[in-house]
């Protein structure tokens, strides 16, 4: 039994990806520094709603369990590792820029942007899927790399693919939530049904 079988993680992650995609389409993402503000919006608004949804939907149905610190430590290690790898890549890029190789690097990144994002998403999804024991994250990672590669070779606008990915993840989350609520009805509801 996992706390993430309720689909809430998928709904909120999908919503975030969808917002990111729509932000690029509507051209507000860079104009208002939305890319920087987005994580702050996520923490300030979505996180409390997610916690409350867990308390109101998940916990009354499957109960509460404290897994201890082992799982949390593993997740923190993966998160820090990912951040360090990202910072390392940024450092290498900055170093190359100072050495006057920026044009080459930038061209390479811009030309293969979707493949890089796709591969990065796949690596992050695989890492978190393994740490959290969520097999569907592998599927999301694979889906992201496939559709972004198709988008790259067919010349589809990046934001359309991101939006479609966001919708897919969100719809999957809603389907999971409906399945979860049906599988674990509240005791009162169960008594009425019986």
């Amino acid at each position, binding site marked *: *039994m996992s706390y993430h079988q309720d689909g809430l993680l998928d709904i909120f992650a999908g919503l975030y990806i969808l917002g990111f995609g729509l932000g690029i389409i509507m051209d507000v993402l860079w104009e208002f520094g939305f890319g920087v503000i987005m994580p702050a919006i996520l923490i300030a608004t979505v996180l409390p709603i997610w916690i409350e949804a867990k308390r109101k939907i998940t916990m*009354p149905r499957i109960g*509460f369990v404290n*897994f*201890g610190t082992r799982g949390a430590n593993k997740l923190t290690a993966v998160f820090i590792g990912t951040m360090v790898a990202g910072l390392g890549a940024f450092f290498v890029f900055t170093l190359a820029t100072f050495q006057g190789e920026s044009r080459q690097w930038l061209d390479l990144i811009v030309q293969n942007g979707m493949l890089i994002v796709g591969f990065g998403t796949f690596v992050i999804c695989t890492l978190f899927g393994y740490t959290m024991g969520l097999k569907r994250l592998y599927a999301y990672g694979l889906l992201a790399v496939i559709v972004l590669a198709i988008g790259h070779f067919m010349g589809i606008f990046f934001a359309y693919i991101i939006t479609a990915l966001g919708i897919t993840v969100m719809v999957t989350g809603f389907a999971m939530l409906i399945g979860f609520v049906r599988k*674990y009805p509240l005791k009162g509801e169960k008594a009425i049904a019986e």
Partner: protein
Amino acid sequence: MAQLYVVQSADFTFLLHQTEMTPGNLSAHLSKLEEAGYVEVTKEFIERKPHTALALTKKGRAAFKEYRKKVKQFVEKLPE
């Protein structure tokens, strides 16, 4: 006990789903484990609703470890 062994603590609802027992049956099992000093039961109110948190005691954890060791030894001694 195996369910509680892998976590720090869990509540009654969680154990009910995991063990697929009836509430009365699970309650009886937990009472016996509590009497033996293997399980610690904490009753509290969360948002005016009763909540029962359960955790293995040190004695319970040690007893389960010993039980596991003995079962392992027994299974290993079985002929092919």
